[in-house]
């Protein structure tokens, strides 16, 4: 009993997708929100608090949107379990706040009938009520409220209308001592769903008069955006714009962050005495923090696009247009955004795989995303191509170097499609999930909601991905720094470090693919990020400031590597998981070291096989 006084009243927001549930959550709780994950699953848990007019503290949980308490995806399972009070570490809600799009009541009425069976006190928020009024839709609120046995409040979440009414109704409900009834919910059979539809249909007929001016905009816009040819052309144009934006808009701030962190590192280096501590702070911590922050602009730009497209209602259309095209390789229609963004960087790409709700489809997408050629591979490709591929024309407008670069990109795409095909056909055979998706009406996104959502993305990346990436970066630093070279040593310092030792020790493994020990040693710091391999090669070949002096390094490589070795190195970089940040994000997004391990192993295996094939083919052709 006393528990009720001590703890805040728990309110759970439940509703169909696209009903403005999150906008309502934002309007209710403002900035008093916490985003975390539910224990043991990768589903996002959004909780916020507010104080009601009567002075009660409410703790509001924004549950994933669903059409039924019968869960079809991990997100929906969370909604079901939270409502039923079955979720580990969560209490059952004191009040269920059902959220409905006032212009689209049919399906949500059926969900409300299910929620009623759960027996929790309930309030229904008819959201987007302004649109309903504009359409001339008439709802008998009193009648509907009597019929459903719960208070009804009309809201316009994006304009914060009806929010006080809503909290006042929750107060009233609690003050009246509304208690939870018996929970009689169980998974409905098909016949019961049909029955509930009939019931919902009857309720609709009795209390809702259809709109006098139904929405015609969505139909007209769809005639263009879903047109088989024009629609695809517009989608490709949008994707091109997005890809460009991730590259160009994110470039300057990323450079500024890099320069800023570098400058801070230099200041720290001046303050600190030379030695290990300085190296740890400058080369380990500052470089580590920098390597996390540098991804932030790309993530923000990409998610800005994704959130806008989602809020407009376009994302479902894009998935519709791409489904068949992606489906040939066993990928979901929604996988195109993550895969496209992976051309800039696999990290935002993997994070955006959240738009796919089926677990298997999402895993497949995450697993193949790093095969898309990310921008960090470009410096490595440029270096090796400049060193080994002659700069000559092989046809009208065809430059051999450009052709090789194109080939590397094409190899990445082809292998991503092939791997996802194999995953679907071999490992998850026959498990094609039904593809059913509501195409919501188009709506103008609200700036505040977009911004809040974007900031949450940034916070999630920094606080949680950073927590994994940073220690891994420090580990790479430790490996390349310790032990220090003995006094009077002549070779590069890295040669004496653990990285050097590991490199020498495992070099025999790499001999069959034509790698010398310098390359293997450079691969280890290269795990920090792909482009670091350029600097690392510079270090082992003792070329000062290799990134600024690519020409000298290239010339050096050209004289010490055979062509076969150079090509083998390129093949390695198409596939190898040479990026701890990506691995860290995979661990974070799949909530599993196992999936991270699977990705690491399959990519290393592919890289080795590809390099082996390329090296021996080249040797056989006389390029050894």
């Amino acid at each position: 009993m006393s528990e009720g006084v001590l703890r805040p009243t728990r309110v759970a927001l439940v509703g169909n997708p696209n009903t403005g549930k999150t906008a309502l959550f934002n309007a209710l709780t403002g900035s008093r929100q916490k985003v975390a994950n539910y224990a043991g699953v990768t589903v996002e848990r959004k909780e916020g608090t507010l104080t009601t007019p009567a002075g009660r503290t409410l703790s509001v949980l924004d549950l994933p949107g669903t059409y039924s308490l019968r869960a079809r995806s991990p997100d929906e399972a969370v909604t079901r379990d939270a409502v039923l009070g079955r979720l580990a570490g969560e209490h059952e809600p004191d009040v269920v706040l059902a959220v409905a799009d006032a212009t689209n009541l049919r399906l949500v009425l059926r969900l409300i009938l299910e929620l009623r069976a759960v027996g929790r006190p309930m309030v229904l928020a008819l959201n987007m009520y302004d649109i309903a009024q504009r359409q001339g839709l008439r709802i008998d609120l009193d009648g509907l409220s009597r019929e459903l046995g719960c208070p009804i409040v009309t809201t316009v979440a994006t304009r914060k209308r009806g929010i006080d009414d809503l909290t006042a109704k929750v107060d009233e409900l609690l003050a009246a001592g509304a208690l939870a009834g018996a929970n009689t919910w169980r998974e409905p059979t098909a016949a019961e769903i049909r029955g509930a539809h009939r019931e919902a249909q009857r309720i609709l007929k009795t209390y809702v008069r259809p709109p006098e001016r139904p929405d015609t905009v969505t139909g007209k816009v769809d005639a263009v955006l879903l047109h088989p040819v024009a629609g695809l052309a517009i989608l490709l144009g949008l994707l091109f714009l997005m890809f460009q934006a991730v590259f160009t808009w994110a470039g300057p701030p990323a450079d500024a962050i890099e320069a800023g962190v570098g400058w801070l590192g230099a200041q720290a280096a001046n303050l600190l005495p030379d030695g290990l501590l300085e190296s740890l702070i400058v080369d380990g911590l500052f470089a580590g923090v920098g390597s996390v922050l540098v991804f932030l602009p790309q993530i923000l730009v990409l998610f800005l696009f994704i959130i806008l497209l989602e809020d407009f209602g376009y994302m479902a259309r894009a998935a519709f247009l791409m489904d068949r095209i992606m489906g040939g390789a066993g990928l979901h229609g929604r996988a195109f955004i993550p895969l496209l963004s992976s051309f800039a960087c696999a990290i935002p790409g993997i994070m955006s795989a959240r738009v796919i709700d089926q677990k298997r489809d999402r895993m497949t997408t995450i697993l193949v995303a790093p095969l898309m050629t990310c921008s960090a591979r470009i410096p490595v490709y440029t270096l090796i191509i400049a060193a080994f591929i002659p700069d000559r024309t092989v046809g009208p407008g065809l430059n051999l170097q450009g052709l090789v670069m194109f080939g590397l990109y094409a190899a990445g795409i082809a292998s991503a499609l092939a791997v996802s095909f194999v995953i679907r056909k071999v490992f998850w055979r026959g498990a094609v999930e039904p593809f059913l998706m509501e195409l919501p009406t188009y709506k103008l996104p609200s700036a505040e909601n977009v911004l809040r959502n974007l900031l949450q993305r940034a916070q999630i990346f920094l606080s949680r991905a950073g927590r994994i990436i940073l220690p891994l970066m420090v580990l790479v630093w430790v490996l390349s720094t310790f032990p220090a070279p003995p006094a009077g040593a002549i070779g590069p310092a890295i040669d004496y470090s653990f990285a050097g030792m590991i490199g020498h020790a495992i070099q025999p493994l790499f001999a069959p693919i034509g790698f010398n020990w310098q390359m293997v040693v450079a691969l280890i710091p290269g795990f920090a990020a792909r482009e670091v391999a350029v600097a690392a090669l510079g270090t082992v070949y003792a070329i000062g400031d290799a990134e600024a002096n690519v020409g000298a390094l290239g010339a050096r490589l050209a004289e010490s590597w055979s062509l076969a070795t150079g090509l083998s190195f390129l093949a390695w970089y198409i596939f190898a998981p040479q990026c701890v940040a990506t691995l860290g994000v995979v661990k974070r997004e799949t909530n599993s070291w196992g999936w991270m391990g699977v990705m690491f192993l399959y990519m290393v295996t592919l890289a080795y096989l590809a390099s082996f094939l390329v090296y021996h083919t080249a040797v056989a052709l006389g390029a050894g």
Partner: protein
Amino acid sequence: MHDMAAEARGGADAVLAGSVSLSTVQPGDRGVIVEVRADQSGGHGVDESELERRLLEFGFVEGARVELLHQGLIKGDPIAVRVDDMRVALRRRDAQHVWVRIERPEDAAR
């Protein structure tokens, strides 16, 4: 409508005789759902009763009015369907379990 559905489930092919599967419908076609029954194996990742329930939950229920709005470029797949007052996208392979009595303008004219 619902009596018809009950009859159809009872195996009265007379009801289905005038109906076609939603998976064969062309853009512009409209009609009424007479039967939702996922009973043959279609190689779905979920069992048939599950697919049937998902279709029902998205509003594909006997008596609902449907209109095929758009279709994809390759083999006309997937399809965008208006179901009563909402729009749903689905693949034709999942739509094959929804049976529709088509009302064509030329039928009315005849």
